């Protein structure tokens, strides 16, 4: 119960920050102030809020869970590749989008695309695809909140109530505080997680009797492959470097790039981003791997047993049995289990609050969807002209309530695994949309029809991969099921973790074909007027 009280205190603090931001902005019912904090964020808030926006429940809990099952490869796969690609895209694309936003008043990516390519409804198509890919994040954030509160309180707070509290708190500070409140809360959450992540590492390490003995014990055990990268193929590892291309294409990240007061504020963000990734992910991955040595905890033994049965007998099982074992062996809760085992109650509460901070990262997505709806649909189709800017801001607030209620209703009914999968598709989808930004900012010859081709291709490819993985069940750990191999070349396979195209993850062909479509279709179609193009180069 004590940890749950600490978490509730934390939620109250977060709520207060949102309301404080609202009072700070009192009297200013301007869209730019509410949705972009008047483009006035300072360097410290800009770095930590932009970084915190990317640190979702999927990133934190999922990383230790992935490391528990797959070993140290998780860090190179998901973290250090992001530490290179994300700051690089912020440096190349974020700074340019910031400058264009300042010069021409853009508040969303679609506004920029509409202006850059002189298009109207094609912009609406891009909005729809972006919005559909973003909604699963909001749902999974609420699910993560409900699950975390339920676990921390030892089942005292039921899942439905935990989810409702998290939804209410996030909705309230986004509703009142807008971008300013969201950025301040994200900064607070990131600092909290950085501090308590380090404390968690020390406390758990001491509790386990030191990492040296745990690591050496693991090295001498049959699980020693977890200390290597043997469980993942080099093709898969290479493919994963395409996934962080999604970050800059996410509307909430790009919109965040518009909030900096000066372009020089990007400098610290670009330089420190890889170090922030290192500080948060390395402990999570290391603890996830070391959890395999904590065999005196029954929950961890059960997970290992499920993993062993799946590996040895999975080939002869029905797909449903394999899915059940996969769920049982999943390690998304290992950090929580380790905290319960080794941390004193009050500290487990503080650390739980740190995890809660990561879980609640859906705030930026909610605000981004609201910004996109009010700017790209409401204002674009005449709402702002007819009803004024104050009504536009109120519309954005109403949208925040509606989208949160919708996400909560879905979170209560649907199984979590569906949305975990949807997020995986969304990463690939946004990565496949990244050529839109590159073409808009770096290629004079790009056209709206090229943009449409990229958007439609992305939507079709995401749906196709989802249908394929729903129809063809995942095989047991080991060799993939080859579905199409003309002339002995393995073109399409179903792997235990997803799909492989020529051995690569689907994101590789998705991004490459997107880029190709942009080039070919643009070369065949009419360019925007020279005056429009000159605004961008």
């Amino acid at each position, binding site marked *: 119960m004590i940890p749950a009280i600490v978490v509730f205190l934390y939620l109250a603090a977060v709520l207060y920050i949102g309301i404080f931001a609202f009072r700070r902005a009192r009297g200013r019912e301007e869209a730019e102030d509410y949705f972009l904090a*008047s483009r*006035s964020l300072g360097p410290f808030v800009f770095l930590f809020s932009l970084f915190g926006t990317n640190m979702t429940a999927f990133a934190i809990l999922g990383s230790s869970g992935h490391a528990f099952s797959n070993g*140290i*490869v998780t*860090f*190179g796969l998901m*973290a*250090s*590749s992001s*530490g*290179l690609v994300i*700051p*690089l895209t912020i*440096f190349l694309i974020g*700074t*340019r989008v*910031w*400058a264009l936003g*300042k*010069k021409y008043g853009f508040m969303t990516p679609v506004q920029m695309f509409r202006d850059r390519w002189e298009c109207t409804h094609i912009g609406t198509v891009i909005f729809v695809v972006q919005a559909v890919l973003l909604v699963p994040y909001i749902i999974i954030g609420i699910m993560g909140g409900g699950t975390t509160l339920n676990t921390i309180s030892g089942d005292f707070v039921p899942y439905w109530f935990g989810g409702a509290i998290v939804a209410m708190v996030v909705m309230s500070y986004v509703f009142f505080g807008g971008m300013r409140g969201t950025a301040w809360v994200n900064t607070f959450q990131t600092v909290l997680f950085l501090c308590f992540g380090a404390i968690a590492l020390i406390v758990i390490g001491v509790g386990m009797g*030191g*990492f*040296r003995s*745990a*690591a*050496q014990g693991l*090295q001498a055990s049959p699980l*020693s*492959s977890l*200390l*290597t*990268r*043997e469980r993942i193929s*080099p093709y898969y*590892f*290479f493919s994963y*470097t395409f996934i962080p291309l999604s970050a800059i294409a996410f509307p909430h990240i790009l919109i965040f790039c518009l909030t900096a*007061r*000066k*372009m*020089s504020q990007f*400098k610290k963000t*670009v*330089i*420190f*981003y*890889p*170090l922030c*990734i*290192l500080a948060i992910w*390395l402990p999570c*991955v*290391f603890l996830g*791997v070391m959890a395999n040595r904590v065999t005196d905890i029954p929950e961890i033994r059960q997970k290992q047993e499920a993993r062993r049965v799946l590996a040895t007998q999975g080939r002869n099982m029905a797909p449903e049995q394999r899915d059940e074992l996969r769920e049982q062996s999943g390690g998304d809760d290992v950090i929580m289990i380790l905290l319960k085992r080794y941390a004193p109650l009050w500290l487990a509460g503080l650390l739980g609050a740190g995890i809660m901070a990561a879980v609640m990262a859906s705030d930026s997505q909610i605000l981004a969807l609201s910004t996109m709806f009010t700017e790209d649909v409401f204002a674009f189709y005449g709402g702002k002209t007819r009803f004024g800017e104050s009504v536009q801001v109120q519309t954005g607030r109403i949208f925040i309530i509606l989208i949160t209620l919708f996400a909560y209703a879905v979170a209560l009914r649907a199984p979590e695994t569906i949305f975990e999968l949807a997020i995986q598709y969304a990463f690939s989808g946004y990565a496949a949309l990244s050529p839109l930004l590159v073409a808009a900012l770096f290629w004079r010859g790009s056209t709206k029809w090229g943009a449409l081709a990229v958007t439609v291709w992305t939507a079709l490819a995401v749906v196709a991969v989802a249908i394929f993985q729903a129809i063809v069940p995942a095989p047991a750990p080991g060799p993939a099921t080859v579905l199409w191999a003309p002339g002995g070349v393995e073109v399409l396979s179903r792997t235990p973790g997803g799909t492989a195209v020529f051995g690569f993850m689907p994101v590789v062909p998705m991004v490459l074909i997107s880029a190709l479509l942009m080039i070919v279709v643009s070369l065949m179609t009419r360019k925007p007027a020279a005056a429009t193009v000159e605004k961008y180069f």
Partner: protein
Amino acid sequence: MKKILLVVAVVVVYILHQDIWFWRSSYLVFGFIPIGLFYQGCFSVVAALLMWLLVTYAWPSHLEEEVERANPGEDEAR
């Protein structure tokens, strides 16, 4: 020349990320950090250094100047 060197540096760092040389080694650095994890941790520091190089030698300051020309006196107004 400076830009070409920076592009080469980005490509080299990207290749270094692939790290196939420690793929199957379970050697423990300092007796507790697996070599593959230690390498990727060091890689993150190298990535930060690369970003520092880019920010120092290839910063698109012309963009900021364009914005200042387009919105003169904005900072004073805040």
